[in-house]
């Protein structure tokens, strides 16, 4: 029904800025392992059931072809327990001073090393605290390459902490440019996103 409403609203006007709203239909199925379209299975030839049925060609006396939605509206079940646990973990995190980096670079700046020295003091005094270092990037790199650039920043930060005698368990990860602090398109924002974010993950 949603699709029909969308279709009627759009009839005669193919403007791309008016999208049909089947999405709300999809949302209604959240958490339910969704209805399949029924119908025979395994008859789709090499394309499989989710692919398009093979084209049949034109005929003076065409046979009838049943048309269905292209992919069954199958959604991944939301794992609410998993989401709650993750959010609790996030909330329990404490943060240290962020370490900032130059454009395209993963080497530490002098200021970065100075801030890390302060962090190192704190960590040496609390050797059982686990620490996670997240690498982040500004939006001027491609999303794929920024994933590894963020990881390089996090790894460089870990290396320097270890060189300062930090013995805590340190893990690194990267969010590339997927979780920016800010989204303005100028340097006043970019520098804040080129960072290693240090979080304390609680007692061992």
């Amino acid at each position: 029904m949603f699709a029909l409403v969308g279709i009627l609203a759009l009839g005669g006007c193919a403007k791309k800025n008016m999208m049909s709203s089947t999405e709300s239909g999809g949302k209604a199925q959240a958490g339910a392992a969704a209805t399949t379209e029924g119908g025979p299975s395994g008859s789709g030839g090499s394309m499989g059931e989710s692919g398009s049925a093979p084209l049949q060609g034109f005929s003076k006396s065409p046979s009838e072809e049943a048309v269905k939605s292209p992919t069954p509206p199958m959604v991944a079940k939301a794992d609410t327990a998993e989401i709650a646990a993750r959010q609790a973990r996030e909330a329990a995190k404490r943060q240290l001073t962020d370490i900032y980096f130059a454009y395209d670079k993963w080497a530490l700046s002098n200021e970065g090393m100075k801030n890390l020295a302060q962090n190192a003091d704190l960590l040496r005094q609390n050797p059982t605290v686990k620490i996670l270092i997240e690498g982040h990037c500004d939006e001027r790199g491609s999303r794929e390459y920024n994933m590894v650039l963020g990881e390089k920043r996090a790894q460089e930060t870990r290396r320097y902490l270890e060189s300062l005698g930090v013995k805590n368990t340190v893990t690194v990860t990267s969010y590339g440019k997927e979780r920016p602090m800010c989204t303005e398109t100028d340097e006043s924002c970019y520098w804040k996103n080129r960072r290693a974010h240090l979080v304390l993950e609680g007692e061992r």
Partner: protein
Amino acid sequence: MRRPVSLLALLLAGSAVFAVTTGAVEVFIDATRGAIQKIPIAVYSFKSAISVPGQFPADVLKADLRRSLLFDVADLERFGIRAEVNSQPGPEALQKAGEAGLAVQVWGALLPRGSEIVMEGTLFESSRGEVGRKRYVGSTDVVRYMVHRLADEIVFHYTGEQGIARSQIAFVSERDGAKEIFVMDYDGYNRRRLTFDASLNLAPAWSPDRRRLAFVSYRKGNDPRIEELDLITGARRPLVAFPGLNITPEWSPSGEELAFATSKDGNSEIYKVDKYGKRFERLTDHGAADLAPTWSPTGRELAFTSDRGGTPQIYLMSADGTNVRPLTYRDQQGSYNTAAAWSPKGDWIAYVCRDERRILKLCLISPDGQQWRQLTTGSSNDESPAWSADGRHVAFSSTRNGRRDIYMINTDGTGLERLTTGGTSNEDPAWSAP
């Protein structure tokens, strides 16, 4: 399944000139070549006995035929021909259209049958008469898909190619601070949400049979892993879950293997794994970062991103990891080139290039490095190129309207279309097989 079609009849009716093999009656439009003469086509309004207006399927069909880049869709009013028809165009209209050079004419009808509808489409050639018909049955929700099938049948009839009107685009949409996987029709309609993780899901990749989507998920914690969602059963399983980053999945053309990058060895390296997620094979071995593999259509080669030369550039290698060589060079293509996508026709590799303003654009380079051009222009960041199966369009994300959304563009830089709205942003498109 290539089916040759006589085009001589079409040529008689119009001024179109195709590459007709000398002496042969049966010819083919070679759709892979650029700049072919388009077939002039008339699309009449569908006769509709249901609540869906007949102009609607006609508009969808016209848009599909235009996007095929094989047809020149005529404005019938300009020739004094009424687009509205009663069951079928009268002999006068058909003749008038033929005289106007419209070699091919199409019309259709929508009829109720119980709770379903029946759509019939007719393909007509001005000099030959009726070629044949199609008859579709389904719910009122699937009228668009009936029309898309009709459009692809027309494309198939004249080219032997599958067409792209039935294809789907998977993408990432940001909602409430989370990034989730969505799917939509190739023209941006019928958007459907697939994940509800309240986390980060990135980089969707279609299996060639359209049954499975691989993507990167952060839902289990700090190490992003590659998961697979079966679109038939809804089953979800981890494919690659090493410690470290597991990113940039890409199915091989056969669907038997998945190439990806992992940092389990300390820095990002490219691996491949069989479709069962069991047998892993390391392809690169270098202290620099190697990532973002893309398969050649034969499956014999891969292009990928590496910063082994100091800045990220595109490299090529054989599918067993040997014969690594650079494709882009800093002094020729600039200091930052990433995210390659190999055209399904094999003729181009699209990638993200960064200009001197530090803005991300899309560029095209031939796999032999001999041809190069910039595909998108302007001051927006354009990213994540993904090819249509016919090799004539590239979907990508762009900030050109202030926010990040998905667009498509023809390989010659024309035909830009916005495909998404809604959410905070939409990005990372992956284009399915037909």
